[in-house]
């Protein structure tokens, strides 16, 4: 059991947790993730380690509530416990001084992009950040990103904040402005990462993406997280999660991530019903 030292809402359905996990805090590097179970009968889900603090032995994770497990997690508060956490898992991001690096985060992807942006800055890169969201409330970690980026462009699809448009359009603008870019790291929904890959491909800019397949063990044992990169099968949990964007088969990734959609829907509906029932019962008790 791991204790939640701090739980804080960052945006709609998005929450930050600082969790006691001293060993993971000590070992983790940018780009690595944990797998956790919120409850004993829960699923094992992967979440990126956004930050860590060796002094107080905590790691930070940021979760977007999209299904049963992430919504259950996001209902927890400071002082609650998480059933178990294993990590760090996956290979750390490859960090070097590329020159100018662009870090692109879409939605909760910003949480995953942040630790690597920070490491890129520490390695001496000029770091440009582009962080996108549907609207203003979906922009997360702006302050943190600001601290590690030389220039930061928040973008919103509806123009309610920052640049009005997609992260891809902003990236294209920067390229068109004649700025020399040596490295791009893009993390977010699969369609976004796919689109970024197409923006940088014609220019031959080295571009990495962090893949998010469905995982179980996270140790290479099950093969459920397999993806196709450079026409070869890789196990994302041990060979990744970061891969060359120009070689990833995004079609297969999208298709495999839909695998359990019917079951996930069922699970979430039941979950919501249970929550509503509990709320009704609580109301009855009060009356």
């Amino acid at each position, binding site marked *: 059991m791991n204790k939640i030292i701090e739980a804080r809402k960052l945006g709609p359905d998005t929450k930050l947790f600082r969790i006691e996990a001293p*060993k*993971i805090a000590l*070992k983790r590097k940018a780009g690595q993730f944990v797998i956790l*179970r919120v*409850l004993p*009968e*829960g*699923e*094992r889900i992967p979440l990126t380690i956004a930050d860590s603090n060796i002094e107080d032995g905590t790691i930070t994770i940021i979760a977007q509530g999209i299904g*049963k*497990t992430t919504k259950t997690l996001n209902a927890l508060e400071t002082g609650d416990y998480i*059933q*178990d*956490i*294993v*990590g*760090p*898992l996956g290979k750390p991001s490859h960090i070097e001084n590329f020159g100018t690096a662009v870090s692109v985060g879409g939605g909760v992807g910003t949480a995953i992009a942040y630790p690597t942006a920070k490491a890129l800055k520490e390695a001496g890169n000029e770091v440009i950040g582009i962080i996108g969201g549907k609207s203003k409330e979906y922009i997360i970690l702006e302050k943190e990103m600001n601290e590690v980026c030389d220039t930061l462009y928040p973008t919103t699809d509806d123009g309610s904040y920052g640049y009005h448009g997609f992260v891809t359009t902003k990236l294209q603008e920067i390229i068109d402005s004649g700025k020399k870019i040596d490295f791009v790291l893009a993390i977010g929904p699969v369609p976004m990462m796919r689109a970024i890959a197409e923006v940088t491909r014609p220019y031959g800019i080295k571009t990495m993406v962090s893949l998010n397949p469905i995982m*179980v*063990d*996270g*140790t*290479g*044992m*099950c*093969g*459920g997280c*397999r993806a*196709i990169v450079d026409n070869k*099968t890789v*196990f994302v949990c*041990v060979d990744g999660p970061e891969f060359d964007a120009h070689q990833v088969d995004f079609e*297969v990734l999208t*298709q*495999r991530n*839909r*695998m*359990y959609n*019917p*079951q*996930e829907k*069922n*699970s979430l509906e*039941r979950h919501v019903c249970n929550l509503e029932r509990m709320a009704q019962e609580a109301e009855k008790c009060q009356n």
Partner: protein
Amino acid sequence: MSKLTPKERMAIPRHDMPEQDPKVRAHNFKEVNCGYTQEMAVEEANRCISCKNPGCVKGCPVNIKIPEFIAEIANENFEEAAKILKQDSALPAVCGRVCPQEKQCENNCILAKNGKSVAIGNLERFAADYEREHFGVRPPVVKPKTGKKVAVVGGGPAGLSCAGDLIASGHDVTLFEALHEVGGVLIYGIPEFRLPKDIVKAEVDALVKAGVKIETNSVIGMSDTIDELLAEYDAVFVAVGAGLPYFMNIPGEQLNGVYSSNEYLTRVNLMKAYKFPENDTPIFDIKGKTVAVFGGGNTAMDAVRTSLRLGAERAMILYRRSEAEMPARKEEVNHAKEEGVEFRTLMAPLEFKGDEKGYIYSMVLQQCELGEPDASGRRRPVPIEGAITEEKVDVAVVAIGNGSNPIIARTTPDLELNKRGNIVVDEETMKTNKKGVFAGGDIVTGGATVILAMGAGRKAAAAINEYLANPDKW
């Protein structure tokens, strides 16, 4: 009872294992084999003629004192029988259930030559169950503390048995396990209907009672490396199993509904996906569907029989060689057939095809015939020209074996491996090329058996004992 003559003993018919009715059990996860009653066990034990030079013992990889423990059962000293078993095996309740007896002890029983061998596995299971049910699993008796610390990496049969012997020798033992539960394949691979999980838990609990510290959720290599463990512990035993599933590298293997047997079984056994949605981990809804499992080993049998229990309408084994070459235990093959599994041998898959959403829809199969023997000495399957068919299928499970997991190797660059990625050890002591590091089980042999992994764990424990007493001599 000792008055029986050998002739009279040999006249007693072998007692078959009482089993759940195939029609019923094919739809539940309860154990298939119900176990002997005391009367049956005693009668079966009376079939053993206590050979002076027993072949059975030579056939057992850990040389269990078979005539001795069976004689105790015949004399109704069941506890004593269990004690004799424990001298050579840390996990008799498990091995009595899952050993390929027909290739090992029972194959070498003198009675096998003119009829049916003594049911050694069933008797072993009986004695171990009797002890556990009446007295619980007894924790090992612990010698005075030595002040030495040993780390065991991996909680499968190799790690568990090594930890048990080391704690008994008075060392301080910590076992690190990557998953949230200890037991290795015994927990996530072999299904409940063949090996109830309570049996494994009882063994683990006994180790904890004896003082073994267990750290679940610890992936060694990712959290601490072997070198970091060596800085804190006097010796390390690596028993991380095989566990990196092979795929067939045919088109369509990425389709939704194509599983490795490891994933399929882990979802069901460890994560209890058969209880979805009470438990959160999903698995394909296969009620009324067709499931094809590729392979002929125990893993394939476990996957196909699990499919029936998940409600599959048709569950089949497709194997590219003939039934004679199947590596699975005979009992599993028979049980699968009784439960209604279809066996289709000399069938090799060429391709999986999917629908527009990427879910598997059909499989393209190549009929083969047996040709000349290959390097393994088994006759090679040769495709019959033109004998290609396409059939509808809803779920495919690939159960063709495991390579070695890369995490320890990548993070311990100076550990010597063979070409296949297995750790190289000295066979007598299980020591690796790294001082203070020992290894055993599937990570050394490649996918093998529980009894061999158990034996390797105990061998390593004995060697570690000597090493700790005098490390400079190693």
